[in-house]
């Protein structure tokens, strides 16, 4: 059946699908109809009435943005009458409009201003006696001036439809209709800034940007958001060598111009005056600023000495998921080719490193099976152990849209309430640390209930053994998830509809993280979630270049591209240097090595073990023991205070390079401003140090590094630096054949009644050094403890009371936030806050048994 209809617009014929609006059909023909409230990614609103067109045989004009085509329709988009109507409609919008364009931030990029100009209206036409509306100067980050609002409704739509936040609403009626935050001012929402980005006029302003620049003075440079693994494409808005604002355009970005609060407002660290601006050397007790020549000269001399006296294994390095692929690649090359050791690792050792291990074991993948696009076709989405909204907002937007607009079935399993719960058909609240049991239980339940399904899958018996000892009743007791829910999810997944399994931080920090990934791989294979284009097993990665850093081989046991040392010949050829064949020390072993006096030199690039790693106190002890500690960073971090050498690096906004997002999208970013004072790109610092160490490196540009990467890393073979367009290229990750893979399950004891478990995770506005030094701190810079209201009641803890959480002789303290978001017996403390180091307690997992006391 052909569902196309043929219509004529301004005499031109076109055949379009039935549901198409007249506006879309006209645009397909290249015919421009003026619009204001319409936005292609929102449901039509129809409030501005600018897009009126005439249709033959219709008494009155219709709004083309809301009216679907009908076969044989004859549409006129331009006529005297329409022009007059549109003009009148714009006049109406100008009524009582302050027309303070010269002092309005929107001036120069305001739709109303443009329209008034286009239609030749240059003065205010009319005033209605009405008292000016309150301007909201109170809300953080967003300034709302309803006097400039044309009531198009876009902000409400974006907040509801895209953001799922429902923080603002139309209120009142008649002329007094306006848009206000729920519960009045100030705004209390997730501060994504999306409403600002979608307001066609200057009613919603970006506060940090206010009065900073006129639109036409800004240069827009393509870049990539440095926060989460979502890898949103952004534009740095630059004037006079300062990044003043971040934008993202709907038309040419894979994220459709959607950004979260960190992306929109979290860039303040770039222009921050606390940035490191000069190399430092420790002379006796003090660190003093020196030139690069002195710093690198001395560092290389000392390092050479250690190399000579103690050998390459006495030197180690830790890379960073925040810096570019090129930086990371060069960093590991430095260790393998220049020093001759595999002692290189990163914070990811404690979490995301297990992703590739688990995926490869079962599905033959080295990364996410699909891009986030797969989410947009999913009829079923199963989210396990991820606070997707905080860890990777773009994935959350897609999931919410599927659940709310397209009616997909959403199952969310998490030890605490997350934003997605609100949109879920089923939510499972399991006890912290029982992810593996839960998945095993679901697998078992699928097996029990779907004998005939399993008969058709010949390899299933392979799994039988892993599931043998499993008794669902016990699983239910230990996980705390009712048996019916386990069966319910099993039934949903056994239908094998198109869908995705999504998992995140709780899984990566599990004691048996690899096994959980394997079990999920099995589940995905069983429920056919990986076999086709529209089905996926999708990890949620909370830091922007985790995937890239791993792909670049910043790990002790594999070469770039996850290649075994035996297969290192091509590297040796290109690097003209033999590479060590023994796996190096991982982050834990490096720490032990330092404490044991075996490791004497440590090179840190963009990471601070004192803040980001488990056992911070041991790291502190270790950093004091080192003979040679070099810290390369953008800020003077905790660990930098102990460094012998501090190398100031530039941010992503000052250099060029590539990042690889969680969906393995490799994207290029460009410098918007020149390097901050003496700071240098990481790759350049490494290169200079190498040269001084006697190993020649002469990359003129990150492009040259990427060319080397593409020649050596098979996964990156398909790209060339030049071919990476605005949205980069999403790499496939298939490297083997999926198969059921057995896994083992450690026993988990049932918690004692009355005991507490601490869990930790990403706080939305906060993800470490970057956000701490950006404008986001207006939203709070102190950590907190979430505690269930009933637990709080029995401990007589009130909102804001100090609460002490202790375990194995260590304790942290923060203010109580009483909530129903955590179940009884669980407390949540966000990680990455300077004031409360939750890492002290949870070590290398994200949960641990604790005691909770008031005070």
């Amino acid at each position, binding site marked *: 059946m052909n569902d196309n209809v043929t219509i004529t617009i301004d005499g031109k014929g076109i055949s379009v699908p039935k549901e198409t609006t007249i506006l879309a059909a006209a645009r397909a023909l290249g015919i421009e109809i003026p619009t204001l409230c319409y936005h292609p990614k929102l449901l039509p609103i129809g409030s501005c*009435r600018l897009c009126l067109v005439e249709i033959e045989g219709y008494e009155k004009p219709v709004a083309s943005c809301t009216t679907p085509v009908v076969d044989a329709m004859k549409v006129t988009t331009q006529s005297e009458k329409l022009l007059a109507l549109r003009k009148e409609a714009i006049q*109406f919008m100008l009524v009582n409009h302050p027309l303070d364009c010269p002092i309005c931030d929107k001036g120069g990029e305001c739709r109303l201003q443009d329209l008034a100009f286009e239609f030749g209206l240059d003065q205010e036409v009319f005033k209605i006696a009405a008292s000016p509306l309150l301007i909201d100067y109170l809300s953080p980050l967003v300034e709302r001036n309803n006097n400039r609002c044309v009531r198009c*409704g876009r902000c409400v739509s974006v907040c509801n439809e895209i953001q799922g936040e429902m923080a603002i609403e139309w*209120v009142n009626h008649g002329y007094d*209709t306006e848009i206000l935050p729920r519960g009045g001012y100030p705004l209390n929402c997730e501060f994504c800034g999306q409403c600002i980005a979608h307001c066609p006029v200057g009613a919603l302003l970006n506060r940090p940007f206010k009065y900073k620049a006129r639109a036409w003075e800004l240069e827009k440079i393509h870049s990539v958001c440095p926060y989460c693994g979502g890898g949103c494409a952004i534009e740095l808005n630059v004037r006079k060598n300062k990044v003043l604002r971040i934008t993202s355009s709907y038309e040419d970005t894979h994220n459709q111009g959607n950004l979260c609060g960190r992306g929109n407002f979290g860039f303040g660290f770039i222009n921050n005056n606390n940035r490191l601006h000069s190399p430092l050397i420790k002379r006796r007790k003090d660190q003093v600023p020196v030139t690069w020549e002195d710093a690198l000269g001395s560092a290389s001399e000392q390092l050479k000495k250690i190399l000579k006296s103690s050998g390459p294994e006495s030197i180690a390095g830790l890379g960073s998921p925040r810096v570019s692929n090129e930086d990371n690649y060069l960093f590991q090359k430095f260790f393998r080719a220049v020093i001759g050791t595999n002692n290189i690792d990163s914070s990811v050792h404690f979490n995301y490193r297990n992703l590739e291990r688990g995926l490869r074991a079962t599905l033959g993948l080295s990364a996410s099976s699909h891009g986030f696009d797969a989410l947009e076709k999913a009829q079923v989405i199963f989210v396990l152990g991820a606070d997707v909204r905080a860890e990777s907002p773009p994935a959350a937007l897609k999931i919410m849209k599927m659940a709310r607009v397209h009616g997909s079935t959403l199952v969310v399993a998490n030890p605490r309430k997350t934003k997605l719960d609100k949109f879920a058909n089923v939510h499972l609240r399991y006890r912290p640390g029982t992810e593996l049991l839960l998945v095993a239980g679901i697998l078992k339940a699928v097996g029990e209930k779907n004998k005939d399904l399993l008969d058709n899958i010949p390899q299933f018996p392979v799994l039988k053994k892993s599931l043998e000892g499993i008794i669902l009743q016990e699983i239910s007791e230990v996980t705390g998830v009712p048996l019916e829910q386990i069966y319910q999810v099993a039934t949903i997944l056994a239908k094998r509809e198109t869908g995705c399994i999504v998992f995140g931080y709780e899984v990566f920090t599990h004691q048996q993280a690899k096994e959980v990934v394997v079990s999920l791989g099995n589940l995905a294979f069983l429920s056919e979630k990986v076999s086709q284009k529209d089905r996926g097993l999708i990890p949620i990665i909370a830091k922007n270049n985790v995937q890239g850093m791993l792909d670049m081989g910043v790990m002790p046991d594999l070469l770039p591209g996850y290649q075994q040392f035996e297969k290192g010949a091509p590297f040796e050829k290109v690097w003209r240097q033999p590479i060590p064949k023994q796996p190096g020390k991982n982050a834990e072993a490096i720490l032990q090595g330092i404490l044991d006096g075996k490791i004497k030199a440590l090179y840190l690039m963009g990471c601070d073990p004192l803040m980001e790693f488990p056992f911070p106190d041991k790291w502190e002890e270790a950093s004091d023991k080192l003979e040679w500690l070099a810290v390369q960073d953008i800020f003077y971090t905790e660990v930098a205070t102990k460094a012998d050498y501090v190398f100031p690096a530039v941010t992503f906004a000052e250099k060029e390079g590539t990042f690889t997002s969680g969906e393995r999208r490799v994207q290029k970013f460009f410098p918007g401003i020149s390097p901050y004072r003496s700071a240098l790109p990481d790759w350049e610092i490494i290169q200079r140090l190498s040269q001084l160490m006697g190993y020649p490196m002469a990359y003129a540009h990150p492009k040259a590094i990427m060319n080397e990467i593409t020649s050596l890393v098979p996964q990156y073979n398909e790209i060339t630096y030049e071919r990476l367009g605005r949205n980069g290229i999403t790499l496939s990750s298939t490297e083997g054949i999926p198969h059921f893979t057995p896994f083992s399950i450690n026993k988990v004891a049932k918690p004692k009644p009355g005991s507490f478990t601490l869990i930790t995770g990403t706080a939305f506005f906060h993800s470490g050094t970057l956000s701490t030094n950006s404008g986001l701190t207006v939203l709070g810079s102190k950590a907190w403890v979430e505690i269930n209201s009933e637990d709080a009641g029995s401990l007589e803890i009130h909102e804001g009371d100090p609460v002490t959480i202790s375990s194995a002789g260590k304790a942290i303290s923060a203010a109580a936030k009483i909530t129903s978001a955590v179940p009884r017996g669980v407390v949540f403390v966000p990680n990455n806050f300077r004031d409360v180091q939750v890492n002290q307690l949870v070590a290398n997992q994200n949960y641990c048994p604790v005691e909770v006391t008031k005070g």
Partner: protein
Amino acid sequence: MLTTEDIKGVIEKRGSSKEHLMFILRDLENISGNNQLEIDVLEKVAEITKIPKSTIAGFVGFYTMFKTNPRAPFIIRVCKSGPCHVMGARTIFDAVERNLGIKPGEATPDGLFYLEQCECLGVCSVAPAMMINYDIHGNLTEKKIKQILESYKSQKAIFGEKCGPEVEGKACVIDDDRQTKRLLVMVGKVDPLSIDSYIKNGGYAAIRKAIREYSSDDVINIVKDSGLSGRGGAGFPAGLKWSFMPKGDMQKYVICNADEGEPGTFKDRVLMEENPHLIIEGMLLCGYATGATVGYIYVRGEFRRAIERLQRAIDQARESRMLGKHLSGSTFSFDIFIKEGGGAYVCGEESSLMNSMEGKRGFPRFRPPFPAGAGFMGMPSNVNNVETYASVPMIIEHGATWYKSLGTEKCSGTKLYCLSGKLNRTGLVELPMGTTLRELIDIYGKGIKDGKTFKFAQVGGSAGGVFGEDLLDLPLDIDQTIKAGVTLGSGVVLACDKDTCAVDFLLNIISFFAHESCGQCVPCRVGTSQLHFLAKKFAMRTAVEKDIDSMIEKAQLMKQASLCALGQSPILPITTTLKYFREEFLNHCNTRYSCPECDMTLERFYR
């Protein structure tokens, strides 16, 4: 302050989904003691129902009957719409103010009364009127107001059965044998509280007959043949509308529009109060014809008695198995529920009405999709007016030919005309479609009050036009009024004598639109306010001639560009008023021109 338990109780009783929001909030307001919905209470509601706070705030802010500020146990709402305005509403405000010493928006020092303005209360034959909580008092005089207010001082606020217009529906029907009563034939005869009485008088025979003898298509065809057209204002052929409902066994809805907010209209209220089963039967027939299994009656929140009586009728019909599953042993199942309004005229617009039923702000929806495609909850829905449904049983019972025996060639049957204004006799009359204004005024209205002379009549309500003497003999049906450039609308006839000032009258209409615009689309939101501003200029005698054209221009744009019929309406009253009274408008451009009517209005509402 309401406790969490109180709030939980109400939500438990009403159900926690969004579509019950109106009920929940109304109940909470009633038990609050001072007619207030405190922000804290709303937050609790949001928390318990999981309806987003913003949605609730937007909802409360839309419906005029709700307020978040403290009021008083008794809210006095004085009507300022057309019929009451003409009959002296302005003096009523004065009287109430004198009596209680408060202005609109204030509470008496004893905290007992709170004064507000409101739009049409649906008792226009006894204008001027006011409503105290849900009791509506008409025929107000200063003396009467005093007595009424006195009587409340010793009362407790009540809610429910006992509330309602003090003049009962049946008393609003003009007592004159020359009428051709079909819809009203049982009014006053049948006991509205008893289904037995309805059945004894031949009720529910039509639905039984339909189930027995006709297929659903037959019913649609009979209604088509009868020529019945919608009585809510737009006059769309009912049978044709029913035939748009898709076939198939998806959930479909029959919706009865009982929002009756058009100033001057009170016919639906009389039918609901006096013969509720007739409406139920009409809806049953529509359900049978269209394959819908659920019906909703959306009654404006002010009509307490109508709501109570309809609810009682529904309960009785369920008990007597006239509603429920497998009716009359057939496969046809149908049930009816009531939804309430919150004091917004625009909610009578059918798509806005469905949004309101869903617990949303009453924003009209753009079309397509039409209700038959995606209506209430996105499912196919048929919306008709009360009078339309009430006309159906007789058509099925007596046949299309019989029905067509009255009325004009293109518009068959009888019409309920609502007479109000400066007439010697006001009230409801049922006459064949196409009765002339002259007949209505001279015979049924017994002529202009106090022997004064006729100046004009407003026909069709605020959205209708002004009729001068030249149109006195125009047959008032749907077709011929349209041809003459006016409209029959919902059947309002508001007669005005020579004392009425055309400028003041138009200002009143336009202020109504400005107040009732939903505020969603730019042309109407700004346009109504701009018209209001311009009309006021004439009343203030600061206008210039060009403002006349300005008004027409703006209204013309609104007609072309507005999203719904509300914004498209002001053009008709403006052009028709100007057709007759341009001169008067020009006079008002003179600052020295004396106009006590305008002065009084300015003093009352714009000081």
